[in-house]
């Protein structure tokens, strides 16, 4: 299904989206958090972009692990360990295969989610980015089983992510800084969840642009 080039497109889009949305993501975190999420993410992915050419790209899995190391060593706050773990686990799942299948990508997403759960002592329903990431992995598995093409799959993922992110609005935060406000955390979307949704949409669009060329 995809190789190093596609993985690079995805990672570059993630990084660029994080940098471009620094203010938006920060404002989301300010509602019931401390407002630094956008800043943390932007600073970390800036580093990824800065060191882009020097990243080991011998295999997609290796590449993702290197990105994970940059992130966890440069991003502070909760997001450094969380996002770093996600990239490290996803990379480890892909191993050193040169080409990765849809199944493998789904497994990588699943592994990232499990890594975050372990690292954050958290689960689906806690109002975190897991509430988008896990539905994403589920949906990807479905689309792969249905034999959907890349376009269809990415569109489906965009819709799933957006809906899942919006759904965090009605939840009470049980993990992270937002949880301290208890009942008051209801009524606003989770910053991490929404960031992930925006990222998936951007990946979808980037993929379309590349396919058009």
């Amino acid at each position: 299904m995809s190789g190093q080039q596609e993985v690079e497109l995805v990672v570059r889009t993630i990084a660029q989206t994080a940098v471009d949305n620094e203010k938006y993501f920060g404002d989301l975190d300010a509602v019931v958090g401390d407002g630094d999420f956008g800043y943390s993410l932007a600073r970390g992915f800036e580093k990824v972009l800065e060191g882009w050419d020097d990243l080991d790209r011998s295999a997609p899995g290796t590449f993702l692990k290197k990105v994970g190391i940059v992130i966890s060593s440069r991003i502070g706050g909760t997001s450094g360990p969380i996002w770093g773990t996600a990239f490290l686990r996803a990379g480890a799942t892909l191993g050193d295969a040169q080409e990765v299948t849809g199944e493998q990508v789904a497994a990588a997403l699943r592994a990232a989610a499990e890594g975050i759960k372990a690292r954050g002592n958290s689960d689906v329903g806690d109002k975190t980015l897991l509430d988008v990431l896990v539905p994403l992995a589920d949906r990807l598995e479905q689309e792969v089983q249905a034999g959907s093409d890349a376009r269809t799959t990415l569109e489906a993922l965009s819709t799933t992510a957006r809906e899942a992110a919006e759904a965090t609005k009605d939840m009470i935060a049980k993990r992270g800084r937002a949880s301290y406000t208890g009942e008051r955390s209801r009524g606003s979307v989770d910053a991490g969840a929404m960031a992930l949704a925006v990222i998936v949409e951007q990946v979808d669009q980037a993929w379309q642009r590349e396919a058009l060329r």
Partner: protein
Amino acid sequence: MKKFVNDPKQFVPEMLRGIALANPDTLTYVPEYNLIMRSDAPREDKVSIVQGSGSGHEPAHVMIVGKGMLDAACPGDVFAAPPMDYVYETAKRLASPKGVLLLVNNYTGDRMAFDMGKEMAEAEGIDVRILMIDDDVAVKDSTYTIGRRGVAGNFFVIKAVGAASEQGADMDELVRIGEKVNSVTRTMGVALTACTPPAKGSPLFELGEDEMELGVGIHGEPGRERRKLVSADEIVDELLEAVVTDLPFSSGDRVALMINGLGGTPISELYILFGRAHDQLAEKGITVARSYVNEYCTSLDMAGASVTLVKLDDEIEGLLAAPAEAAIRVF
């Protein structure tokens, strides 16, 4: 944004550099890892005491590095735990034969960064222990949270552990002392205004002219409840009640009382709060044996204050009274 700031991304590094320049004889600054350490650390005969957390809480922790206090502070960016790398590098540089004790306020990000940094350091044979601080009574320990937060009460853990380590206590002894102090320390805070992180450039939340936010943490995150602003006396009474009933503190207790400013409140107002708290405690038969009125752990420029009580015994009182020096020289 009414701040003295150049590039907001350089806010923390420029502050740290200033601290180092103001204390050339006693402190060393390692810019790569936001590290401020005593120039004479690590010492063979002393456990190294380190605290890290997000920045924005100054003087905690980067300005209380000194004899009898911290051996090093390892801050992240404003309100963000340091990357685990920084923790690891700090532990390496502070490695003493007697070990490195990491004091950590209980927040998800800090917990994770310090756990991971510790694992990395241990892999290199460094003896590292973590001591969690969680004195905030605003957050009840429930399934909804990862437990109480660590707030201004961390000063007392630092002070006691810092003094004991100076007297030669070993790691187990320090962990025992730190856990004991933490277990008898309780804090509750209130915000009158939201703070403005330099990188955000605007207040984290909006508080009406007649509103206050009860039970805030130290990161500008909103608190437990928004309420009508009332008089200084009424505010103290409420904060104190939450603190006193939590441990609980009771008649006959000797305590340390801290009124901590959150950054934007002048010290004059803190003494008004102190006077009332002192009266209320006297009425409950609780004796204030040690008084702390100043900024200890802030949220940038937030107007607000927190009340901390520590239940004293002879050991704790002795450690709190021990001499200490800090990077912030007042005289």
